[in-house]
């Protein structure tokens, strides 16, 4: 990892007696795109709002560019572009007025770049905020976060409400920002988005960070499925005890099997080759599967009894 731009150490925040986050620690390197994953209420927004100095941590530390998020908040905000989870803006202003207002408050906005962003996301800036659809409201908030070419982007579920075309455009914007050295901290539960844009991922559950690592590293806990169709009936016991097989399911009256795999498929291929194989299909799990699996238990991959 490059020099850390965001450093979070044993960060804890509770709301009265209610859980927020507890002992959350991670680092995000400069220029890195970090995905922060978790279900609703896991603590993603709390972590982000502490980074933005909207909440004060009970204990632990959060630093951006070496500055404490609370004490150095104004200096940090000069570096940051921020998209809140539930953006709320003055409904009586037009998109253009909102962007101009925040451009004035931030300073250093290149008007040509701003117009380019408006074009890229296909926003009509002449309409009042209240008249925008959910997706268009999101575009206004995204543009205000990118328009001053920040060194750090903190984005709380940024693509919620965007159509697939605009999501694609957003992905390009993130990739370009990252290529120019911008650090991106992105929370999401749209895992395909994280898969496409992020280099590293952290998973938070019930206020605790259960795992961090590269997107590819996370897939080491993945399971994948193999479905094999045979010309004849094949006993499922053939596959049950094989190395790498976690679960076996009989299909089509014994003419096919679906295998839940964890590890190498060599033994399965060799066993299947003894029969007349009609077809063999393998499914790569998406990050969604990996993610959901993390929430089956307490973050550990739970062993499943093989089913026949």
């Amino acid at each position, binding site marked *: 990892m490059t020099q850390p731009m965001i450093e979070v150490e044993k960060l804890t925040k509770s709301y009265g007696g209610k859980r927020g986050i507890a002992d959350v620690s991670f680092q995000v390197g400069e220029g890195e795109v970090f995905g922060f994953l978790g279900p609703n209420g896991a603590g993603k927004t709390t972590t982000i709002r502490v980074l933005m100095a909207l909440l004060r941590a009970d204990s632990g530390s959060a630093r951006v560019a070496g500055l404490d998020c609370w004490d150095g908040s104004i200096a940090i905000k000069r570096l940051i572009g921020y998209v*809140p989870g539930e953006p709320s803006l003055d409904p009586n202003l037009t998109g253009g007025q909102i962007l101009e207002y925040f451009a004035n408050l931030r300073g250093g906005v290149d008007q040509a770049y701003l117009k380019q962003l408006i074009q890229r996301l296909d926003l009509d800036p002449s309409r009042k905020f209240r008249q925008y659809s959910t997706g268009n409201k999101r575009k206004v908030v995204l543009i205000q976060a990118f328009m001053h070419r920040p060194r750090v982007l903190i984005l709380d579920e940024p693509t919620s409400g965007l159509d697939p075309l605009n999501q694609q455009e957003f992905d390009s914007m993130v990739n370009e920002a990252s290529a120019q050295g911008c650090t991106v901290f992105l929370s999401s539960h749209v895992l395909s988005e994280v898969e496409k844009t992020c280099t590293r991922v952290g998973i938070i559950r019930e206020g605790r960070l259960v795992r961090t690592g590269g997107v590819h590293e996370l897939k080491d806990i993945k399971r994948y499925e193999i479905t094999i169709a045979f010309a004849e009936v094949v006993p499922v016991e053939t596959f049950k005890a094989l190395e790498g097989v976690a679960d076996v399911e009989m299909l089509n009256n014994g003419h096919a099997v679906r295998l839940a795999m964890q590890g190498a498929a060599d033994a399965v291929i060799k066993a299947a080759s003894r029969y007349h194989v009609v077809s063999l299909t393998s499914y790569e799990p998406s990050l969604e599967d990996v993610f959901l699996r993390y929430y089956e238990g307490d973050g550990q991959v739970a062993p499943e009894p093989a089913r026949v």
Partner: protein
Amino acid sequence: MGRWRRSPPVFRSIFLKTLRDYRIAILGWGIGMGLVIVSPMASVATLISTPQQRAALASLAASFAWNADPVKADTVGGYATFKIGIFVFLIVVWPLLAASRMLRGEEERSSLDVLLSVPRTRVRVAVEKVAAMWAALLAMAVLIGVIAFLGGKGFKADFTLVDGLLFGLNLALICAVFGGVALLASQFTQERGPAAGITAFVLLFAIVVDMVHRVIPNTDWVSRFSPIYYYNLSKPLIPSYGTSAGGMLVQLGLAAVLSGAAIWLFARRDVGSTVALPRWLSLPRRAPTTALPVRDWSLRSVYTRSLGMIGIPTFWWTLGIAAGAGWMVVVVQQLVGRMQTLLAGSPAFQHLLIQMGGAGAAFNASFLNAMFQLLPLLLMAFAVTQVNRWSADEDDGRLEIVLSTPHSRILVLLGRFAALATATVAIGLVTLAVTAIAASVVGVALDGTNLAEAVLGIIPMGLLVAAIGYLASGWLRTAADTGLVSFLLAAWFFISFIGPDLNWPDATLRVSPFYYYGSPLLHGLQLANVAVLLGVGIVALGLASLRFARKDIGV
């Protein structure tokens, strides 16, 4: 997983759920307003201890006819009815706010979309909500009536429980009328705030129109256009005067027609949109510009943006306050001649005038001084609305992105407060100009310096309320914050206007900012008193800034 409990009965219909939402208002407003009615009853005994004083009180009340009909003002029920007079506007504040947010408020929060997804017609949803508000008003009426009856019994009044309940019912009816106005207005506005503002303006206008026939002879026909006229036809606390069934029916009819029209429009318009006005009624709109930068002056800073936001409400409040002050000057001119005759012949009368709101040798200033006590109250009410907006902006998450820009939290709060201060100064200056012009046009001689001090002296009062509201918002959410400052305002007002009648100690009277405002039209502003108001305001604002700089936002 926890067992799903059967929902309590209040969640089984829109009517009951809405009524449940009003439960605190029913108790707070019902008991509070009941006590407001009882307060003047406590002081009447000291005002009518001799036949001369009794006669003088009746005569004096006649001279204050602009406030209320002077009927049997020398009795407990009559004095209470007279003293409350135009303060009916305080009582109407709740239905005004409740009705303006009844549908429009839910549309703003998008919660109406969900409610309208249940298998009920729009008309049914709206009717249930209106019915709940009317039921809440009836419950308040019962509370007010019972408290008025008990108060009357304590002070040996001659009205019965039925009279007390009819008094409460009459109040509930006028509240339902202005609730209907607010509901109708909210069909034409995108937000609840402007609907409440329009209704407040209509209310003040209706109060003034009702006043006309009591000030200018042979103008009864003018006042008949005001719903307040029909409210004033009933005086149930004066048994010999009684209740006007016709007046009550007119109010009921008006409330039904206004609410019915609002529901009819609501059922036909787009949810989240407004009823389209004919072109000749619509405000001219600037063509939207797609060109950037927009170069709008109000987008340059937090201060200018706050000023832009506060502009339209400031315009309406300025119109109301300045027009009210100008009207007071016109009214005073009508009363002075009559008053001079009465005052010359009766020392008891002079004593009463002092007890009822200020007196002195300068008649113009004496009368106007009594009426001008309303001005700081109005400006403070304006400040309460802006406290509500500040607090709501935080609750609604509108400060989130502003606070992500490189500006300190303290500067954001002070920028917002500075805009409010600018608005209050503007209201003060315009009111001063209107008052001076009105005095000059109708020929009322007033001390220019005292007039300026009386009008501009309301500014620190408004700022004090705002600072306290900003401070309380550091801990309280919008509803509680607005409720607290509204309660403080009502408490201060009654400490200052009822306290002297009840011979409350000076230490208690000093709790109210109205004490420090004094009688500037008569004696000018006391510098030390202004310093107290400003000092407390600055301390409150300082603490509000410190709290805002340290608190969790939106929690």
